[in-house]
C-alpha cells in the first residue's frame, strides 16, 4: 500500500470511528428513501451493527398500524430522526406513513407510538376510493426530512439570499408528507401538528414516489397517470412564498422506481423513465442531459406500466458523479454525468451482462428483472460496491464468482466498481441466496440487509393477460424474511426465519442506529436490531 493510500485509509478510519462515536451517542438519521440524496441505501457507520454482532440481531418490536386494503404498499419505509430533543425527552423517532393518509411517529427505542397524525383529505377533487395495482390510491410517497447535500449540512433552514422563504422552512426541523389529496404537510416532529397550512402541490389521487428535500426543494415523481395526473417530475420550491411548484412532464413514460429521483452532488435531479435516464437542473427542472436506456418497442407499451424499473443511484468519483442505472434490458449501466449533453443518445461508460433471466412472455414481465432501486456502499479500503435486487432467476450469461445456492425466485447481486484500462467497470462479485421478491437492500458496516418480501409479484394472469384483483394477489404470497448478508461474499449471517408472519410491503427498507425497519402487507411494522440495555 502506498503512502497516499495509507493516509487515505487512516483518514477514512478516523472519520469512521468519529462517525461511530456520534452514531453511538445519539442515533443516526435516515431522512429519505435510500438514506441520502444519492439513494445509496447505505448507512455509512453504525455503532451496533457489524459482521461480528449481527448474529445477535433480533426482532425488537412490532406494531400494527392503520392501513387500507389498497395493494401491496400499505406502509412506507420510515424516515428516522436519530435525535430529537423534545418536550417529552430525547427521542429517536421513526416517521412512518401509511396509505391511510396517516403519519405515525414511533419511538424507535421503546417501540411505542409517539404521536399519530391523520392527514385530512381536503380538496375539491373527490377522494378516489377504488384501488388498482397501478393506482392504489391513498398516500403513496415516503415522507422526507431535510437531506444533506453531499459533504454539506442538511437542507439549510434559510432560503437563498434575496428570497423570503415560505412557512415550510425555518425553525425546528419538520417532517414533510404529501397526502392523497396532493397537499404538502410540514409536521412538527414533537407533536405531529401541521406547522403551517398544508398547500396543494400535486394533483389529488396521483401516485407520487418517495419525497426528497434538499436545498429547500422537495422532489417527487408521479407515475401511472393515476386520476389523470401527469407522469412528471415535481420540484416543490419552499424557498419562495408562496411556494412554487415546477414540473417536468415525462410524456406518458412513467418513472416509478421506489426512490423516485436521485440527486447528484451538484443538485442535478436524475430520473429513470421507461426508456431514458434524465438529468434535470435543480429547482428549475430544465433538461440537462439524457441517456437512452432502450428503444421503445410497441409491444412494451401495454405492459410498460408494470415493468419494474429501478431508481438510479449516484456514485461520486474524484469530484465527478457516476450514475448507475439499469439499461432497460436487465443490465446495469454506468453513466458519466459529464458526458455530452442534450442529444439523448449518450452511451454508457460500461454495461454489464444481462442479470436476470428474461420472462418467457408478457405475462411474466413483472416477475423478472432488476427493480425498486439500486444500492451502493464503500468499504474502508475504498472498494465501491453496487447492489441490485432481482426478480426471478439469474441470466445464464451472468458469471459470478461467489454464489449462495440456487436462486429460482430472486436474489441480490453485488458488483465491485473497478477500474480496468482506464475505464470503470462493474465486476460481478456475488449472488445471494434465493429470495422472494427481494426489496432493494440497505447496507451498514459491511452488512447487507436483504428482505425477501415473500410477495407474489405476478401482476398479469398467465391465462388471460388480465391483472390480478386485489383479493387474488395475496393468496399467492408467502411470509417475508429478513436476511443479513456479508457485504463481501453475500454469505448469510442472519435470518429472521419465521418471525415475520406476513409478506412485506413492497416499499423498502430503512437502517439506522442498530435497527432495520420495514412494513408488512397487513399493516404491521417491524423493527429488527441489536438490543440495547435499558
Amino acid at each position: 500500500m502506498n503512502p497516499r493510500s495509507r493516509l487515505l485509509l487512516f483518514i477514512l478510519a478516523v472519520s469512521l470511528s468519529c462517525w461511530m462515536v456520534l452514531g453511538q451517542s445519539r442515533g443516526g438519521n435516515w431522512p429519505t428513501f435510500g438514506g441520502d440524496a444519492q439513494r445509496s441505501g447505505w448507512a455509512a457507520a453504525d455503532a451496533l451493527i457489524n459482521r461480528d454482532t449481527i448474529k445477535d440481531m433480533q426482532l425488537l418490536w412490532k406494531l400494527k398500524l392503520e392501513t387500507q386494503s389498497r395493494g401491496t404498499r400499505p406502509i412506507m419505509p420510515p424516515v428516522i430522526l436519530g435525535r430529537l430533543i423534545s418536550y417529552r425527552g430525547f427521542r429517536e423517532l421513526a416517521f412512518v406513513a401509511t396509505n391511510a393518509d396517516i403519519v405515525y411517529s414511533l419511538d424507535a427505542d421503546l417501540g411505542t407510538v409517539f404521536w399519530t397524525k391523520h392527514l385530512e383529505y381536503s380538496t375539491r377533487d373527490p377522494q378516489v376510493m377504488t384501488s388498482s395495482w397501478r393506482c392504489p390510491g391513498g398516500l403513496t410517497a415516503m415522507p422526507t426530512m431535510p437531506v444533506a447535500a453531499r459533504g454539506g449540512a442538511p437542507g439549510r433552514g434559510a432560503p437563498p439570499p434575496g428570497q423570503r422563504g415560505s412557512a415550510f422552512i425555518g425553525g425546528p426541523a419538520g417532517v414533510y408528507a404529501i397526502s392523497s389529496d396532493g397537499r404538502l404537510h410540514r409536521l412538527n416532529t414533537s407533536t405531529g401538528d401541521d406547522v403551517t397550512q398544508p398547500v396543494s402541490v400535486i394533483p389529488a389521487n396521483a401516485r407520487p414516489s418517495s419525497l426528497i428535500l434538499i436545498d429547500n426543494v422537495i422532489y417527487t415523481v408521479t407515475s401511472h397517470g393515476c386520476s389523470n395526473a401527469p407522469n412528471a417530475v415535481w420540484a416543490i420550491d419552499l424557498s419562495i412564498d408562496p411556494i412554487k411548484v415546477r414540473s417536468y412532464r415525462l410524456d406518458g413514460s412513467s418513472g416509478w422506481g421506489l426512490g423516485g429521483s436521485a440527486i447528484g452532488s451538484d443538485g442535478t435531479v436524475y430520473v429513470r423513465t421507461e426508456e431514458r435516464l434524465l438529468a434535470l437542473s435543480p429547482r428549475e427542472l430544465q433538461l440537462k442531459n439524457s441517456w437512452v436506456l432502450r428503444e421503445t418497442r410497441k409491444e412494451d407499451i401495454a405492459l410498460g406500466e408494470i415493468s419494474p424499473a429501478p431508481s438510479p443511484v449516484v456514485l461520486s468519483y474524484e469530484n465527478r458523479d457516476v450514475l448507475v442505472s439499469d439499461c432497460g434490458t436487465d443490465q446495469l449501466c454506468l453513466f458519466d454525468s459529464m458526458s455530452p449533453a442534450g442529444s439523448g443518445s449518450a452511451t454508457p461508460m460500461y454495461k454489464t451482462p444481462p442479470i436476470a433471466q428474461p420472462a418467457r412472455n408478457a405475462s411474466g414481465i413483472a416477475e423478472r428483472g432488476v427493480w425498486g432501486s439500486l444500492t451502493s456502499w464503500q468499504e474502508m479500503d475504498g472498494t465501491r460496491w453496487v447492489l441490485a435486487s432481482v426478480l426471478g432467476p439469474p441470466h445464464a450469461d451472468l458469471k459470478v464468482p461467489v454464489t449462495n445456492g440456487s436462486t429460482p425466485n430472486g436474489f441480490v447481486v453485488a458488483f465491485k466498481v473497478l477500474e480496468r484500462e482506464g475505464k470503470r467497470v462493474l465486476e460481478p462479485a456475488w449472488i445471494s441466496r434465493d429470495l422472494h421478491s427481494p426489496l432493494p437492500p440497505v447496507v451498514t458496516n459491511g452488512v447487507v440487509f436483504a428482505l425477501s418480501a415473500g410477495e407474489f409479484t405476478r401482476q398479469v394472469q398467465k391465462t388471460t393477460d388480465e391483472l390480478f384483483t386485489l383479493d387474488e394477489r395475496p393468496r399467492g404470497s408467502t411470509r417475508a424474511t429478513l436476511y443479513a448478508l456479508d457485504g463481501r461474499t453475500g454469505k448469510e449471517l442472519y435470518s429472521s426465519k419465521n418471525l415475520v408472519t406476513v409478506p412485506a410491503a413492497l416499499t423498502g427498507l430503512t437502517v439506522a442506529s442498530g435497527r432495520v425497519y420495514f412494513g408488512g402487507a397487513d399493516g404491521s411494522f417491524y423493527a429488527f436490531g441489536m438490543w440495547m440495555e435499558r
Partner: protein
Amino acid sequence: MNRTLWGIKACVVTLGIALSAVAWSADWPTDGANPQRTNWQQDETILNKQNVANLKILWKVKLDNAPKQMHSLLPSLIVGRVPTPGGPKEVVLQAGVSDNIYAIDASNGEILWKKRFEYPPPARSGRPTDPLCPGGLTATPTIGPAHPNGARTVYVLAGNGALHQLDLGTGNETAPTIPFGYPNGKSYALNLWNNVIFTTTSQGCAGNPNQMWAIDLNDPQKKVMTFHPGSGGLWGRTGAAIDSSGIAWAPTGDGTYDLPTKRYGNGLIGARVEGGELKLKDWYIPSNWAWLFKKDLDMQVTPAVFTYKGRELMVTGSKECRLYLLDPKSAGGENHQTPLTTTPLICNEEVNFASTGIWGSMTTWEDSRGTRWILAPFWGPSHSEFKVPVSYGRVTQGAVVAFKLEDKSGKLQLTPVWMSRDMDHAEPPVVANGVVYAYGSGEDTTQAYPDRGLDNQSPLRIAASRHATLYALDAETGKELYSSGDQITSFNHFGGLSIANGKVYIGTFDSVLYCFGLPSK
C-alpha cells in the same frame, strides 16, 4: 436539708445543660453537612417530631445579591459558636452567586459582615440566558475545623477562580488567594478533607474543562491537581463526596464510557491525591450507560458515603431514577459495572431528560435501632410500577422516597418504606433528630417545548417558576408534620437546606434567606 440538696442538684443539672447548649453546639460546615455528603445533622437536639409542627419563620433577610441566570443563594453553612468582635455567636455563612459572602447572626438575621469579591470581568462567559452557565460564585464554600482559639476559616471560590480564605468571625482574608479554576467555570460545592480542598466542574462553561480538582493547602506551591474523566461533566450538586480512604467520588454526568480512550462519562469516578497528583482510583459505570447517554439521563447525583454494620458503602442515583448501592473499595466490582444492588425505577417512566428523575444529592441517616435509611428526592410523577408500602397520595411533581438498607442472607438490598406527599420538584432532603426536612423548589425546569423543541432559557423558566415550600416529615413514615405553605414567595434553583441548633435555612431566587425555627427557642 434533703430538699435543699435536691434543689442544688437540680440547679447544677440545669446549669450544666444550659452551659453545654451554649458551649457545645452543632455545625453545618459544608454542603451536605459533612465530607461524606450525608445531609444528616446528627447533633440536632431542639427540633423533633413532637414540636416541629410549630415551625415558624423566625427571621428572613433580603440580601443584596443579584441573581445570575437562575442561580442566587447557595446552601447556607452554619457554625454554632464563632468568636466575633461582638463575642461568640452562632453564625450563618451565606454565599450568593454574584460573588457575595454574608456572615449572619443566626439568632436574629443581622448581617455581621459581608464581602464581595471584585475582579475584572472575565474574558469568557456563558451564553446569555443560559441557565447552565451563570458565571460568578457557584461553589458552596466550606468551613474548616476550629483553630485553637475557636476561629474558623472559610474557603470560598470566587467566580474568577481565586480561592479565598476568610476568618468567619470577621470576614478578613487570612491568606493570599490561590488560583483554583478558571473564571466563570462552573464549580460545585467545595469539600475539605485532610487539608485538601476538592471541587468539580461541569457544562464546559466559558469553555472550561469538566473535571475534578484538588489543592493541598499544606503544599507550599499550592499546585492545582486535576483529573479529567475524558467525557461528561461533573455536576453533582454537592460536588464530590469523600470516603474514609480519602477518595473523592463524583458523578460524571452525560458522556460516553470507553476504556481504551479513557472516557468515564455517565458514571461515578473516585480519585485521590497521591504523590502530588489527583489519580483515578476506581469508577462505576452502569451497564446501561449507553441508554442513559442516548436519553440524556445523566449520572449527576453526588453520592452519600456511610457505614453500615462496619462496612463503608455509598449510594447514588441518576435522572433515569434508580438508586445504586456501591462499595467504595470496589465500586462496580471487577468490571466496574456491577453494583451491590439497584432499585427499580422510581420515576421517569416517560424517559425524559428534564423535569423528572433524581437530581442533586442523596441523603442517609441511621436511627437509634441501627436501621440505615437512604432517601432520594425526585422530580416528576412516580413510576407506575414502583411499589412502596406507605405513600401519601398521587405524586405528579416530585417527592422524597425512603428506603431501608437490609441484609437479606448476605445480599444487601434497598427496601422501599415510604414515599412522601407530592412536592413541586422535590430537592435533596436533610435529616435531623428523626425528622426529614424536604422542600419543593417551585422551579420551572422546562427545557424543551412542543412548538419549538429545546429552548432552555433562564427568562422563560424564571417567569414560569412558582414558590418553594418547606416540609417536615416523620423520618420513619414520611408523614407530613409541617408545611410552610405559601410563606416562601420565590423559588429556588440548585440551592439547598441546612439545619443546626433548631433552625432550618433556605435561600430563594429573590436573594431572601429564610430561617425557620421554634419561636420559644
